[in-house]
């Protein structure tokens, strides 16, 4: 397909200590998609992201970036298009001030000072960190540091962002803010996003497609509705349904209420409940 940006074909990866992290993973990511990799700790999410980012190269199978095998591309060619946001922002932010950190990528691209400043200003505006340019990185809050990591990649004009647990360690408002930011980048700026997460309550609201990763294998994939339609599978891989889906699932199976579909958000659940109550009132 023409619009496939990243194609992962039959990837397997084994660490030096013998741990087999990925088994025959295949995935096609189209331009402009917002994809989630959902899995428990140790399921292989981070390894897969690092393989897709070209940080791990001794894997079996192939990763094609715009149709070219990632092993044939130089780091410079890969990182012009794809950027990985690490789980811990302290692993990623290394410059003394926020401005310098965000400017690092554009400077390495050989841009002139005005262009660099313009890109940094724009990236910081995108992640709502304007005005903090001169602040030391270690004085930023955890949420700000997470957003600063994204700004560092945005300033390079990446077409694809890979994010490792972007909401981990954030408070509920911080989680929501982060997801809104990613949604905005995806919808307004056309950035293709692949994020690893185990936050089942957040993903249905924002993602186009979802893949469940368990013990290095994809067990399910599809839209959030399709994926969360099998609660038993979720329990098997040490995850749970989103709370709304769990409520409706219990009402359906334990209280024998007649729901047509499994809602994933409060809004959907509200509509489903009203519809079911109206239907039963009509029957009565």
């Amino acid at each position: 397909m023409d619009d496939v940006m990243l194609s992962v074909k039959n990837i397997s990866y084994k660490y030096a200590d013998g741990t087999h992290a990925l088994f025959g993973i295949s995935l096609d990511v189209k331009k402009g998609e917002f994809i989630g990799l959902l899995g428990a700790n140790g399921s292989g999410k981070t390894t897969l992201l690092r393989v897709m980012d070209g940080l791990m190269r001794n894997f079996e199978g192939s990763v094609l970036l715009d149709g070219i095998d990632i092993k044939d591309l130089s780091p410079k060619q890969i990182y012009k298009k794809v950027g990985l946001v690490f789980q811990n922002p302290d692993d990623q932010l290394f410059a003394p001030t926020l401005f310098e950190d965000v400017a690092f990528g554009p400077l390495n691209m050989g841009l002139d000072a005005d262009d660099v400043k313009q890109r940094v200003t724009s990236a910081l505006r995108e992640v709502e960190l304007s005005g903090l340019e001169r602040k030391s990185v270690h004085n930023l809050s955890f949420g700000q540091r997470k957003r600063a990591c994204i700004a560092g990649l945005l300033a390079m004009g990446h077409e694809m962002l890979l994010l490792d647990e972007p909401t981990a360690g954030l408070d509920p408002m911080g989680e929501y803010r982060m997801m809104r930011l990613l949604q905005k980048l995806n919808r307004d700026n056309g950035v293709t996003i692949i994020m690893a997460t185990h936050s089942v309550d957040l993903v249905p609201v924002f993602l186009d497609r979802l893949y469940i990763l368990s013990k290095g294998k994809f067990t399910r994939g599809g839209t959030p509705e399709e994926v969360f339609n099998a609660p038993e599978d979720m329990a098997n891989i040490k995850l749970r349904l989103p709370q709304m889906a769990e409520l409706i699932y219990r009402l359906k199976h334990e209280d024998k209420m007649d729901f047509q579909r499994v809602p994933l958000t409060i809004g959907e659940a509200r509509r489903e409940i009203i519809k079911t109550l109206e239907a039963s009132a009509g029957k009565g």
Partner: protein
Amino acid sequence: MKIFSEHFTGEHILAKIDVRAKLIVVIALLVMVLSCKGILFPLLIAASCFLLCVKMRIPARVLLLRYSQPLFFALMILLLKFFFTGKDVIFSIPLLTLTGHKDGLIEGLIIASRILGGVSLLIAFGFATPFTELLSGLSWLRMPKQFVEIMMFAYRYIFVFLEDGMTIYNAQKNRLGYAGVRKGMRSFGTLAGSLVIRGFDQSQKTSEAMIQRGYTGDMPVLKCSPLRFGEIAIAVVLIIFAGAIWMM
């Protein structure tokens, strides 16, 4: 924990002066202070720098903390020189086997005043200059790249390192790791070892983060804008003025 430039407010006149002009003046003054044969010039510089810090509204507690170490060293050297070097005896305390020497006192005063003058210059410069500007100023002065890069990483990771150290220390303390000298020593050894391992781990991750943002071995820095004539003129006038006092 804050370092010097984090007290930088940006409102003071010194903040608006180009870092390169400040660096040139500081280096010139430093050479004068260290090569001065009297005590008046270094003390004058120390007093001026102290007043500058006060004018920059640096909290007294912070200033005291910054000055405490050089003051301590200056005092120690003064006492050592006074009591243990020289020939011209002023007095002696046989009970303590201490003898005060006039020439030792003069030598001690000269060294102590140089310490105070030099350190005061650096303290005032540190408070008046954001750290990142200092780095670009040092690059402009053709400081070795490696030195500037190490300074940059040190500035960033010293806090991560301290945080990690404190976390491990607290975790050990919570489990009675420091209940007793032997246990404390063992815990401290583990702490130090863990920090070294974490340091290696961190370096690996940082290197990956840098590579994926185009790092190829050269740390890029924003080029400084051309120095303004007014700032060069002020710097030259200041150096000439200080030089005139130094020669008196």
